[in-house]
């Protein structure tokens, strides 16, 4: 048999493995080549995404002409090499058996109480290549039972086979190199320097890649065995990175989530939020429709609630639809269509966060309808990367990992912002200082060196915070036009990119079609089977929309997954909802809005429905329901019922909606322009803030171990400001509403800004300070 790969001949070598002739690309490792022809060589330390170390010696094989067995995971194939594995070489078989015996000498007989039991490479390989009987009669090495590497990850040291997968992951992939192999000989163990916790947003990955049960997670410990879990692939709903995950459940309860393999997106990694934050899926759900009667919510049957909602919406005047950033693309599309066709309004927004008109224009001009323009793969080969209003480690962790990979290959990262964060440090980023709110000036005043380095192979990443910095997006747009650098927008929430594509934003129909464009109107009217004239005129978005609700000029509302506390003007929205004539909320958990809504419909969470999330690249990541027997309706399903109660037929089936969206041709007509917006220079100290990856968000509730790995809430100031404040222990930051006092930290902060986390314990910016990013605050040393 001959196995051939069809690439350039000169880059290949001819080898023989167990008598099978192969032609493989130069540089291929023996273990990889053997996999291709279905020969499994035992291994522990080998991992395709980590550098080979040959630490465990489980993979020993024989090479003709080499007197001693060699590790297959580190041995590169060369021309004419004749490799013999355990299948054809007695030397390799005995060597592997010997290594296995040594590994088991100090391995406890712990399988019954070990989480890895049943899916353990050591168990499996001890059965396939080990000796049937143990010859060891001495005392085994023991350590006191598990120690915490951090609040979530536990380490049973006696189970460790010193493969260094975890330490290599920490150093090479995450860049949080505090996990190390300590001591020597039988005492060799994994640990952290000075017993400090392993601080990493990616710590769950070491649990997944540990080939034995040495690393386990507190949240899954002793929960179940692999054989009684049902595994379903899914897409993470937490952020716009779009990771492929695997959900394991047992008897209708999710027991754990793992990173799944998607080489184009998350490779084999995930962040701890995506992995561990899933308790919200089951806890505190709304389980039946609710209607308000005499000021109180009471549960109602579906037909009663539908009828009530339909009558209420029909009676009310001008309406609007607020789609939070968590909807699947199919659901967002259903909202977009429902608003235009049933309610006859274009007052629509998916940005349940600080936003601006400039951002809406920017999205229409640059992002909507341009899917897969910039991809993860491009990040690795880009020449320069410029980050604007974007903190990848907190806001798109998998993009952060890809950026690190790129940096190792020579990509230069520049970050424009008020804080040179830990993440910037790990990217060896070049810091372009900008006080919070003054990003536009910083971009316009970029060094000529940086500008000349930017070319068509460069990428400018803008995050959601750019919307809070007037003029920043205009400046980015101009910079892109001037240098040819491509612009990518990385929202934080998983549903935002898809909602934009689905047209859940005033002024934009699906596929980035301007609603003011006659051709666009005709195309959509045709697809929706309506008259183009019946499509509404351009509506209002963002802050204007919220003011209109507050002032009562919009008096009927549909909200979906919106939490007013995520908005700088949340109290305005809450007041508006209080006074609105009719509010329909589609929610799975109670919120400020459901407490004031006229009707509440419970909707499905990700485990109960199928759908897709579009990640920041514009890549569609479909997933199917984990619990296929779930009876909950999707948002689109509820909207379809509501539409028929209002005498309009609207499809509510996910697959049909997907098909309808896919049948729309890409938009080739003109786009709305981004009119240059003026920048404003704030006078005084401005507030720099963003949401940390692990914080007080509602979707992370009910996960104490995860919460305990969060970064501490601190106020970060520059050393100059620290001196000026008299080197205080705590700093008080005061806004229009009140103050926050937190421990002081000296960091690389731009001179006129102060940084604190946006939504972490004891630091809830909007609720406590009453202002947002880039706004002027007062800073004082000591308590208030």
């Amino acid at each position, binding site marked *: 048999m001959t196995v051939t790969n069809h690439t350039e001949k000169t880059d290949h070598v001819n080898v023989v493995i167990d008598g099978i002739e192969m032609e493989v690309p130069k540089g291929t490792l023996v273990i990889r080549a053997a996999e291709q022809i279905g020969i499994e060589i035992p291994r522990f330390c080998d991992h395709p995404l980590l550098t080979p170390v040959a630490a465990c010696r489980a993979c020993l094989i024989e090479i003709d002409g080499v007197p001693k067995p060699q590790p297959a995971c580190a041995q590169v194939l060369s021309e004419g090499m004749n490799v013999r594995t355990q299948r054809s070489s007695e030397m390799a078989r005995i060597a592997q058996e010997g290594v296995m015996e040594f590994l088991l000498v100090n391995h406890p007989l712990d*399988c019954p109480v070990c989480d890895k039991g049943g899916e353990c490479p050591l168990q499996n390989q001890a059965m396939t290549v080990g000796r049937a009987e143990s010859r060891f009669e001495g005392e085994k090495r023991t350590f006191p039972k598990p120690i915490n590497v951090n609040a979530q990850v536990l380490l049973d040291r006696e189970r460790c086979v010193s493969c260094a997968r975890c330490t290599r992951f920490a150093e090479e992939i995450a860049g949080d190199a505090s996990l190390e192999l300590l001591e020597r000989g039988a005492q060799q163990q994994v640990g952290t320097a000075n017993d400090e916790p392993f601080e990493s947003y990616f710590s769950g990955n070491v649990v997944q890649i540990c080939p034995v049960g040495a690393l386990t997670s507190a949240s899954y410990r002793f929960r179940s065995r692999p054989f009684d879990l049902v595994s379903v692939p899914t897409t993470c709903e937490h952020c716009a990175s779009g990771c492929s995950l695997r959900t394991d459940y047992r008897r209708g309860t999710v027991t754990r989530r793992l990173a799944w393999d998607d080489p184009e997106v998350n490779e084999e990694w995930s962040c701890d939020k995506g992995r561990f934050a899933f308790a919200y899926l089951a806890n505190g759900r709304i389980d039946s429709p609710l209607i308000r009667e005499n000021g109180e919510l009471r549960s109602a049957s579906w037909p009663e609630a539908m009828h009530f909602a339909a009558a209420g919406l029909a009676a009310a005047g001008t309406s609007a639809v607020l789609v939070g950033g968590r909807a699947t693309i199919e659901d967002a599309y259903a909202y977009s269509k429902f608003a235009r066709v049933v309610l006859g309004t274009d007052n629509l927004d998916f940005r349940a966060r600080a936003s601006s008109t400039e951002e809406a224009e920017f999205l229409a001009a640059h992002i909507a309808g341009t899917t897969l323009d910039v991809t993860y793969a491009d990040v690795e080969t880009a020449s320069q990367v410029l980050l604007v209003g974007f903190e990848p480690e907190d806001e798109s962790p998998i993009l952060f990992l890809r950026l690190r990979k790129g940096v190792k290959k020579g990509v230069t990262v520049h970050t424009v912002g008020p804080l040179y964060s830990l993440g910037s440090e790990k990217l060896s980023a070049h810091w372009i200082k900008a006080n919070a709110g003054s990003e536009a000036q910083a971009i316009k005043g970029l060094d000529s060196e940086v500008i000349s380095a930017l070319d068509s192979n460069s990428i400018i990443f803008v995050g959601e915070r750019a919307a809070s910095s007037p003029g920043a997006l205009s400046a980015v747009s101009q910079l892109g036009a001037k240098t040819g650098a491509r612009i990518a927008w990385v929202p934080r929430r998983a549903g935002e990119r898809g909602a934009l594509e689905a047209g859940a934003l005033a002024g934009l129909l699906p596929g980035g079609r301007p609603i003011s464009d006659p051709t666009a109107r005709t195309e959509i009217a045709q697809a929706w089977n309506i008259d183009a004239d019946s499509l509404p005129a351009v509506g209002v978005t963002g802050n204007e929309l919220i003011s209109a609700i507050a002032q009562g000029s919009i008096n009927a509302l549909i909200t979906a997954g919106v939490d007013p506390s995520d908005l700088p003007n949340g109290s305005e929205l809450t007041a508006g909802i209080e006074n609105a004539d009719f509010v329909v909320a589609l929610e799975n958990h109670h919120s400020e809005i459901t407490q004031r809504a006229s009707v509440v419909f419970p909707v499905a969470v990700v485990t109960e429905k199928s759908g897709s999330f579009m990640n920041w690249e514009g890549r569609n990541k479909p997933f199917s329901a984990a619990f296929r027997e779930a009876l909950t309706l999707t948002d689109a399903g509820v909207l379809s019922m509501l539409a028929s109660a209002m005498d309009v037929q609207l499809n509510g089936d996910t697959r049909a909606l997907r098909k309808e969206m896919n049948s729309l041709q890409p938009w080739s007509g003109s786009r709305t322009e981004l009119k240059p917006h003026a920048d404003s220079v704030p006078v005084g100290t401005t507030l720099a803030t963003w949401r940390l990856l692990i914080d007080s968000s509602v979707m992370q509730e009910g996960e104490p171990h995860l919460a305990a790995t969060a970064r501490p809430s601190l106020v970060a100031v520059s050393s100059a400001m620290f001196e000026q404040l008299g080197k205080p222990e705590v700093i008080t930051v005061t806004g229009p509403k009140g103050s926050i006092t937190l421990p002081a930290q000296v960091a690389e902060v731009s001179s006129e800004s102060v940084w604190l986390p946006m939504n972490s314990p004891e630091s809830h910016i909007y609720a406590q300070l009453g202002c947002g990013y880039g706004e002027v605050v007062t800073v004082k040393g000591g308590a208030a």
Partner: protein
Amino acid sequence: MLELPAAVRGFGVTFGTIFKKVVTEQYPEDASKYPPKPRFHGRHQLNRWADGLEKCIGCELCAWACPADAIFVQGADNSAEERFSPGERYGRVYQINYTRCIFCGLCIEACPTRALTMTNEFELADNNRADLIYEKQDLLGPMLPGMLAPPHEMVPGTTDSDYYANKITGSVPEQSGPQQNNSQEGAPEQGGAE
């Protein structure tokens, strides 16, 4: 020889049997006269250590071994406040579904701690399915003299290894107070341990 008519010949068997010893066992009237054989596979029992702690560690190996998928186990952590078994892990939920069980005993062979054994009890019939799912409290063995109902600490000064080595002979008074010390350190001492 004169052949008897077939009808009469047939009665020969009947009359012959009338005078033989009866083999029918009267159940349930005389059940106590005919106990099952000692190795009969009857209802399961979850055993305890001599001090009352449970032997089951919630490892699910019994559930894994079961060819009829009759067992459901969910493990949990023993905590400083509540200890049910020696060591780290105990079986929080334990159910055997007797509408499924075929009494093969493979679960017994799989159990690493001898927590699960079978009794001779066979009178399990019932008129509904729900009651045939036996919960942990239905399966746990009786409290024998010297045992103390968990949760409680291990015998002070012992470790889980001492339990597995069968060194525990009964509970000691210190175990009856509120649970405070969950430490597994220290050598076995006199008292509850041999």
